[in-house]
């Protein structure tokens, strides 16, 4: 406890220092005019509100941007990002091209592609943010969201990587857990009823199908292009074979699926399933801290690589506070905000910043984060498999529903 507090104080000191250093850099005139315009504006930030930790983090951001930039941040808590998309669609349908009700939205993947295609987003802004200089642009998923170039229309906020969790008290050491989709299938056959995945189109469920798809296909390069009906059947056949094989040994014999990741987490806690997976490597640690999972849960990943992507914030085309929204987006990728976000005591979401671009103090602060017993350090997360083009998922979700959905 004492040790923790000392570490926190040291970190706070380094933060003050980092903040000071940041303030010394003279912002260029263009950004200064954004800051001037932003002062006094109110940003309605539409973001999923299902986690108390994340809500608290966003509230902290609100306090900071108010104090530093005079920007008021209101968190509009959603149960589904689609509600925000629907609102922007409705506003466009009503011809409300200015003064829209959403200024910033937490988004990625299919929702982003849909909004970009329908012209519902403001023009590119991300690469003009002062803190963009620290972003890890060598990670392709920062500028290419599900194979679609972001064109700067969304600013990265956090990383995601598929990791698996199991309860060592029930299932034994994680070293003995499956190390590929093929091994997972064998494991499931040996433990009938103890594995499941959320039914697509749930985000995590669809991501799991993508993982299996990429692993079972000899040449995954085909997924970087839009789906081609001519070879869809041939390319996806190994996926369906895998799913057909696992179906009878799934939880509830595949007659029901968990609704989403939170439901799966509860099933692991109750001992209904033994292996679950999440997109945030720190999920298990924060769930243990929250009393949602037993402290015997540990993480593992596939050495051959697992799916990884980035989540973003975007500004709708009709936002009434674009300048302030940019200021918030910029603050979200400051090393201070990213550091707090990666700390599992607050959230535990991986940073999008490049360690080698950061000042040394910040780099040390990131290295000093106590990630918790159930979180793998970034070096052990394994290679990243790139997201397929989003059209693949649409087709696979349709096909999944046809095969298993009724």
């Amino acid at each position, binding site marked *: 406890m004492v040790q923790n507090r000392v570490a926190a104080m040291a970190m706070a000191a380094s933060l003050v220092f980092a903040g000071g250093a940041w303030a010394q850099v003279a912002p260029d005139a263009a950004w200064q005019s954004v800051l001037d315009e932003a002062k006094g504006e109110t940003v309605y930030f539409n973001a999923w509100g*299902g986690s108390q930790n994340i809500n608290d983090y966003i509230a902290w951001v609100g306090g900071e941007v108010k104090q530093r930039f005079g920007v008021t941040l209101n968190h509009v808590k959603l149960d589904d990002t689609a509600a925000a998309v629907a609102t922007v669609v409705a506003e466009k349908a009503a011809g409300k091209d200015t003064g829209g009700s959403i200024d910033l939205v937490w988004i990625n993947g299919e929702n982003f592609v849909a909004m970009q295609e329908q012209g519902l987003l403001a023009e590119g802004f991300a690469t003009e943010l002062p803190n963009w200089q620290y972003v890890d642009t060598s990670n392709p998923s920062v500028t290419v969201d599900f194979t679609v170039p972001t064109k700067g229309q969304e600013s990265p906020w956090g990383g995601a990587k598929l990791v698996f969790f199991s309860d060592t008290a029930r299932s034994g050491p994680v070293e003995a857990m499956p190390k590929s989709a093929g091994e997972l299938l064998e494991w499931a056959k040996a433990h009938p009823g103890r594995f499941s995945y959320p039914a697509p189109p749930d985000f995590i469920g669809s991501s799991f199908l993508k993982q299996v798809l990429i692993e079972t296909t000899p040449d995954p390069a085909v997924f970087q292009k839009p789906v081609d009906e001519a070879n869809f059947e041939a390319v996806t056949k190994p996926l369906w074979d895998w799913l057909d094989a696992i179906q009878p040994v799934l939880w509830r014999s595949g007659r*029901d699926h968990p609704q989403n990741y939170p*439901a799966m987490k509860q099933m692991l806690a*109750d001992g209904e399933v033994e292996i679950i997976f999440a997109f945030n490597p720190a999920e298990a640690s924060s769930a243990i801290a929250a*009393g*949602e999972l037993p402290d015997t849960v540990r993480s593992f990943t596939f050495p051959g690589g697992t799916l990884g992507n980035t989540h973003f914030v975007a500004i709708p085309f009709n936002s009434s506070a674009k300048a302030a929204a940019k200021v918030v987006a910029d603050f979200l990728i400051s090393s201070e905000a990213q550091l707090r976000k990666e700390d599992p005591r607050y959230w535990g979401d991986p940073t999008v910043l490049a360690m080698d671009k950061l000042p040394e103090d910040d780099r040390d602060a990131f290295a000093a984060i106590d990630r918790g017993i159930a979180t793998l350090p970034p070096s052990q997360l394994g290679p990243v498999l790139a997201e397929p083009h989003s059209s693949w998922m649409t087709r696979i979700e349709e096909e999944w529903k046809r095969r298993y*959905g009724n």
Partner: protein
Amino acid sequence: MAGNGNGRLSKAPGAAIALAVPALLALPVGVGLVGVVLPAFGYLPALGGEAFSLAPFRQLLATPGLGTSALLSLASGLVTTAISTLGVALFLAAFHGTAGDRLARRLLAPLLAVPHAAAAFGLAFLIAPSGLVFRLLAEPLGFDRPPDLLIVGDPLGLAMMAGLIAKEMPFLLLVAFAALPQADPVRRMRLSASLGYGRMAGFLLTVWPGVYRQIRLPVLAVAAYASGVVDVALILGPSLPAPLAVRLVAWMNDPDLSLRFMASAGALLQLAVTGAVLLLWIAGEQLTAALRRRVTGGGRRFAEEGATRLAASIPVALAGASVFFGLSWLFVWSIAGFWAFPDVLPPSADLSTWSRVLPNAAGPLTTTFLVAILSASLALVLVVMLLEARRRQFPAAAGRAVRLSPAVAGLIYLPLIVPQIAFLFGLQVTLLSLDLGPSIPLLIAAHLVFVAPYVALALADPWFAVDPRYEQVAASLGHGAVAGLFRVRLPMLTHAVLTALAIGFATSVGQYLPTLLIGAGRLPTITTEAVALASGGNRRVIGAYALLQTLLPFLAFTLSGTLPRLLWRSRRAMKPA
């Protein structure tokens, strides 16, 4: 009007009010429906739909499992309503005027106050393989993990229907209690007893038809609700495929925006399914009436009841118990530390969830209270105007049944029959094009659309059942129409008015989609917060918010039950039955 002492209203403005109020309430639904019919036929320029076509319907019909989904919704509407109504009828037949009846009346308020989703969570915690029942069985049967059984989310939707029945039975019991005095139970029971009928048979054959006639609209509202329910179906219903309304919401929310055309077509199908449920129910009413006539004509007295009375209490008792246990279970979760299967109680408890939840809840609770009290009061004023105008169209109506005309009733109850998701998008677009920004008054107006029908449901029959001769006496003493309303009719109806107000209040508290869409996220209520947080699946937070959501309606129902007793404690004939 206030000044004219002759106690008469001319017929013309009365008729105008009788039509204007329901038209006002139905207008948003109508506007919203246009916003769904157009995309259903391919027209929504904002998403590139420039021409009319039948493609959305073709796409809808090609969706796998559509038939099963529609059948689930149909069955849910009929089975839920049938069992709830039957349960209430049997309970009243067995226990009317007994201690069991008084106990039920007292316990009704908390049952009604629990939001549907919270009751569904509670039931899920109870009956799931990882829930309380199996935790209790774990030790004797010797298992340390939940059995792999498909109970919650069964393909037939039985768990979902059970959850709905548990919530709808208390609602029907409430309206039945309000209707009972007008069905003249004491004299009818006496007569049937003198003819040698058993207690239950006597009640079902003589009193119940009079009760049912009065609660018919609430029953139909239950049928419509159960066929289009989303939250309960999400928690307890099957997922592969889900009932139609759940899939509708998923399509509306799909990142692939072109699915909205199909979703709009699906909304029209949902409307047809709800319509079919109502028609089948009405056909069932005819059948039951014919059956009753045969039984009466057959002359059997059913004097031997034996264990039937005990059995008759089972549906209501089960419903009540499951909601109560579910709510207690939610409370225990809200203070639990890590709580593994098969522990019956959590090994550690603390208030950390509450200490995080409460500071954030004050603002949403205030908004919730404000919007609920204002929309319910406004609804009450509108409904009283409507009912009074209608009543006065029949000046010599003493002893004759006054009812809302079918057209007016249809208009009022339209918002209950049309699925919310179907017309809210269209309504949102309309409000935006009128440049109406989110505000408390706008939110109150939006809630009014859903609150007023429930207030009307609860108040219409008691309103028309008051003997008009009381007001005639008042008029003969020189009092005007307004004095008659405020000094005779409303005081006599204190209990019914407060019950209607409480129902309206609870309805407003429970609104999720209208609050989110019309409030544009600017006006968070306890329900929008609860739904957003529930998506994180943390049972502690779900438990805490479910209790917070229950709090305001509970106070409303408790006040509506106790205030009349306090106000009229010195008036013997005014004591609530």
